[in-house]
């Protein structure tokens, strides 16, 4: 048995306790993409026992889509389960990438002294993508007039001069059915086909390869102070809807304890609007049992232009919510492996409710 004694082989920086040493990174400010890329390198360099990185795809303009994997060695050699967290599918939602950075910082700074967190990191790997829509995010930093861009920066299709696809309408999940536009100039343009966008394909390929290990898929957005559960289609509900609601509500309770802010829990067609092709829906459809969209602060006063003074409180409450869900899925006794054809959706058609198996959905979809 190999015993690694922390600190003997580490660099002076990692001995000093992760991010608390000489390097200063301001988590209460918004950072441009170049700084986020450098931050990811620094976090990995300073915490090699906990953090590793992967480039798992490229944007339409050729930029790296990268994630940080947070996890500790499992001393029993057990297969690790996975938590997925992504931020920045929508370019203008700056508080989301800010949260992913905060989330990593919190874990790095507290895992050595937080016994529960340490235990979870021995059983789970947490994959965090700070910015999925890198091109769009960079575009929002170009000048004052681009700040409210939402989509990717894909080239205009023939006959149009409008750029970009709404990446959260492009996933292979009832694609193109509700809450989308087929006009490339629209902000909910769903693209030419499911997964047509390289950013979306990167997520679907990478997550798809480890789907059997993933317990929970969290995708972070702003704004509205909502916790959205699957599905975005008004006539489809997840078979574990009741549990998704209760886990979501428990998270909202934890979030409110931090700064008194209310987060509403429900499906998108209940509390926001019907939609299709979202990453949350895709994750649930391929069998990941817990899948949530976090819509962070605020409720309309500043909207996506959330002041930097609110980054800390917004991230603190979001962290409490995310940790609540992660702790639940970690602690929940799981059955021995997951059945490949576990029911993933209940469809109500003309009052008749049917359980739909994931393979059947896939077949129905390709047949359309």
């Amino acid at each position, binding site marked *: 048995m190999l015993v690694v004694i922390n600190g003997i082989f580490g660099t002076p920086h990692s001995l000093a306790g992760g991010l608390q040493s000489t390097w200063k990174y301001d988590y209460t400010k918004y950072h441009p993409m170049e700084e986020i890329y450098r931050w990811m390198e620094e976090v990995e360099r300073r915490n090699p026992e906990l953090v590793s990185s992967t480039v798992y795809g490229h944007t339409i303009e050729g930029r790296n889509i990268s994630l940080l994997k947070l996890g500790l060695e499992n001393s029993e050699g057990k297969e690790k389960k996975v938590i997925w967290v992504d931020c920045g599918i929508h370019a203008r939602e700056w508080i989301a990438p800010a949260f992913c950075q905060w989330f990593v910082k919190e874990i790095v700074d507290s895992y050595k002294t937080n016994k529960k967190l340490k235990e979870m990191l021995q059983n789970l790997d947490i994959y965090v993508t700070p910015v999925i829509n890198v091109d769009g995010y960079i575009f929002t930093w170009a000048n004052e007039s*681009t700040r*409210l861009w939402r989509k990717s920066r894909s080239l205009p299709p023939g006959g149009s001069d409008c750029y970009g696809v709404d990446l959260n309408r492009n996933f292979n999940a009832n694609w193109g059915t509700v809450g989308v536009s087929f006009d490339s*100039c629209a902000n909910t343009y769903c693209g030419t086909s499911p997964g047509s966008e390289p950013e979306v394909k990167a997520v679907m390929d990478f997550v798809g390869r480890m789907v059997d290990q993933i317990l929970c898929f969290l995708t972070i957005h702003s704004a509205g102070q909502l916790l959205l559960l699957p599905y975005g289609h008004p006539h489809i509900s997840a078979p574990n809807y009741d549990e998704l609601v209760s886990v979501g509500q428990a998270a909202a309770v934890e979030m409110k304890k931090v700064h008194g802010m209310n987060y509403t829990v*429900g499906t998108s067609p209940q*509390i926001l609007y019907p939609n299709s092709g979202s990453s949350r829906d895709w994750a649930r459809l391929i069998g990941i049992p817990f899948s949530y969209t976090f819509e962070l602060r605020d409720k309309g006063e500043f909207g996506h*232009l959330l002041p930097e003074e609110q980054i800390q409180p917004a991230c603190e409450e979001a962290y409490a919510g995310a940790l609540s869900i992660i702790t639940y899925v970690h602690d929940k006794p799981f059955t021995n492996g997951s059945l490949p054809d576990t029911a993933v959706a209940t469809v109500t058609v003309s009052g008749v409710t049917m359980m739909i198996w994931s393979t059947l959905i896939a077949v129905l979809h390709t047949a359309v």
Partner: protein
Amino acid sequence: MATGELNPNHYPAQRAATVVQHYLNTYYGSPYKVFGVKGVHSGNAEDVADSGRKYQLNISLQDFISKSTENCSAEVLFLRGEKQQQPSPPQVQASCYELSAINTKVQEEAFYQKYKTNQSLMSAHLPDSYGHIEPGMEPFWHLGTVASSFIMLNQSTEDTLYNMAQVANVTQLETENNQLKFDYHVLLHEMVSQAIIHWKLLFSWSPSEGVKVLQQEQLPHCHDCEKPPNSN
């Protein structure tokens, strides 16, 4: 569409409540008073034969500046227009006496006097990309919300949810008839389509008269504005 008792957390009641917010801001909003929906307690919707749908709501509103909240009851009637036409603006009745009576006279008068003679104010991007508003510029941001509320109220339907995203530009014009006068370029966010819609507004304001919109014009969606910059 849901009829009868509404779930207050679901979107139909929330959208109708936001219409009440816009209505109250057109009446009572000022550089020192702007309302937002804090929550919906209860709601009811019913079809009104041939003309539309009526919502009855109990909501709580909050003044963003003083942070006071009040419970209000309101009715919103969404009118069903003729098939090809733009629907008429919703009709709203609301009782929110405490919020409307919040006393901002001193601040409003000071602001009015300051800008009545010094008429050259120009500003842009309220808030800026970082959510920051220059000290002293908040009243212009609030005025932008109030003026935008006239447009947002007129444009609202059961299928929309509007908020003002940003004041892109403010130019003060010459005071006329003792009213401060402004030219504003505002960006409105519509939640369901996720669109950002540009409007130009010419309006006047004084403590006694409130905001009066003189001219309004929707600006076309500018594709040229979205071409990538030359350098990354």
